[in-house]
């Protein structure tokens, strides 16, 4: 891969290594059908990749939306970048969300805008002038190896390409946190690998803090067992020296397991072993 990369992400303003960048404390959330999250607590530290595992309907996507302030908890506290976001007003949250990249499960690209306009959206909203937007968009699209699609509409792209554009859109303003909602769901293994490689590059090149919701264990282990070598521009076996990948298994709306990939593999718990089969 010979793609140039955008500059480093802006550092989180009030978070240092070891300090939680995102912290959930006894978070409850429910709808008409009943409670989904029932006292969920976890924390993601700076530079860390947290893999949220769980069956369908256990609240993985809800957790990501809570972390981005797109939903409010019924009870409990959600902190991100040192700010209590569960009590912020919608206007304050709109400002806060500019520091977060969110990759939606199906991409959620604006279908009436071209790929380039989708990627440029955030910059245009921030009032950037046209001359500075175009090179930034090209740079980010080059990073996801889709520079040639800038003038295409999302409907003209394959599912995998749409996810990559979604990643490009999420990182265009270099957010310190990126949230991935099942980024490989419904994709073939080769395209899934491309997406995971992109997430690895973001982590290892920029030190982005990430939470990835998925039900594919192999994606989590790929993040834990591989790293992106910036010098050779290739993905290599072995964890990056400064990248930490942890697993969080959700069950019945709360944390069922939290630990390293090795701890998950060694676990004798029957429910966890069903994930490993």
């Amino acid at each position, binding site marked *: 891969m010979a793609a140039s990369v955008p500059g480093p992400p802006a550092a989180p303003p009030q978070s240092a290594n070891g300090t939680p960048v995102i912290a959930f404390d006894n978070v409850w959330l429910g709808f008409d059908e009943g409670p989904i999250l029932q006292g969920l607590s976890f924390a993601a530290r700076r530079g860390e990749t947290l893999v949220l595992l769980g069956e369908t309907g256990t609240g993985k996507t809800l957790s990501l939306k809570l972390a981005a302030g*797109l939903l409010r908890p019924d009870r409990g506290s959600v902190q991100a970048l040192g700010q209590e976001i569960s009590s912020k007003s919608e206007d304050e949250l*709109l*400002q806060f969300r500019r520091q977060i990249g969110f990759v*939606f499960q199906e991409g959620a690209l604006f279908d009436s805008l071209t790929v380039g306009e989708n990627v440029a959206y955030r910059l245009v909203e921030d009032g950037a002038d046209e001359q500075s937007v175009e090179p930034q968009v090209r740079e980010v699209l080059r990073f996801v190896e889709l520079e040639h699609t800038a003038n295409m509409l999302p409907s003209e792209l394959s599912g995998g390409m749409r996810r990559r554009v979604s990643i490009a859109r999420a990182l265009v303003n270099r957010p310190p946190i990126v949230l991935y909602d099942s980024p490989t769901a419904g994709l073939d293994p080769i395209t899934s690998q491309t997406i995971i490689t992109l997430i690895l590059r973001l982590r290892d090149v920029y030190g982005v803090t990430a939470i990835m919701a998925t039900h594919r264990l192999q994606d989590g282990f790929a993040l834990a067992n591989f790293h992106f070598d910036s010098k050779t521009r290739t993905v290599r076996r072995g964890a990056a020296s400064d990248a930490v990948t942890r697993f969080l298994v959700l069950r019945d709306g709360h944390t069922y397991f939290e630990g390293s990939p090795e701890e998950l593999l060694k676990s004798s718990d029957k429910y966890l072993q069903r994930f490993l089969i």
Partner: protein
Amino acid sequence: MSDTPLQVTQPDSTPAPPSVVEVLTEVAKNAVLKVQDYAELCGRSLSNLFSKPRYHQDTLDQMDDIGVGSLPIVLLSGFFIGAVMVLQTGSQFQRFGQVSLTGDIVSLALVRELGPTITGLLVAGRCASGIASELGSMQVTEQVDAMRAMGTDPSRKLISPRVLAALITVPLLTTISVFIGLVGGMVASVFSLRLSATTFWQRAIAILEFSDLMQGFTKSLVFAFILSTVGCYQGLNVRGGTQGVGRATTQAVVVSSVLIIVADTFLTKLALYLADKL
């Protein structure tokens, strides 16, 4: 029975069905909640117009869609409504030898009532459904959430431009519709009632008072607000995927049309009351 993964566990006891009072309470609560949500959306759509950021390009795009896009149907229907009005009323006036009054009655009916109402209903049919389906599709494909995730307020980006565009274009469409309706009435009266075009126009203009124009203008503004906000509300509250989008589209047309007719009744009563007072 063997304990297989496919075995469905039956609950020990089925929950008691809700009583009639409980069901009615739930329905009433939902209705009040919907009215509250709609009122909040209406308030935000207007308050957004007085603060930044404003989306001028989106407003112009919507004006093009709502205004220019609706022009052909408004012109066509306006012409024939005017003509039909003359044919219907003219035949009655002919019995009393008062054919010249046709211009008066067509003019008053079009300016006060038919112009704003027919235009409102036509634009509601065309645009409220379009707004609901567009926003509904964005909602089910998480584009609205994506917008929020990128720090954009959907009420500013999606609702206010549509409401403002409707508030500007629907009164203009109504004006055009009334004029074309009078042209249609004139054509029908010349060829069917043998009334001179000059007499028709003179009577049609002379009968109008300022309060009549204000009545028509106020109605068109209110109808524009109703059709745009109902379309936005139905679109942004879609539940249930593509089927939900279809439901929202139908609901948008039905609700906005009914609200337009109901509002018309109250506005007419209010206008007549004010005309007597002032």
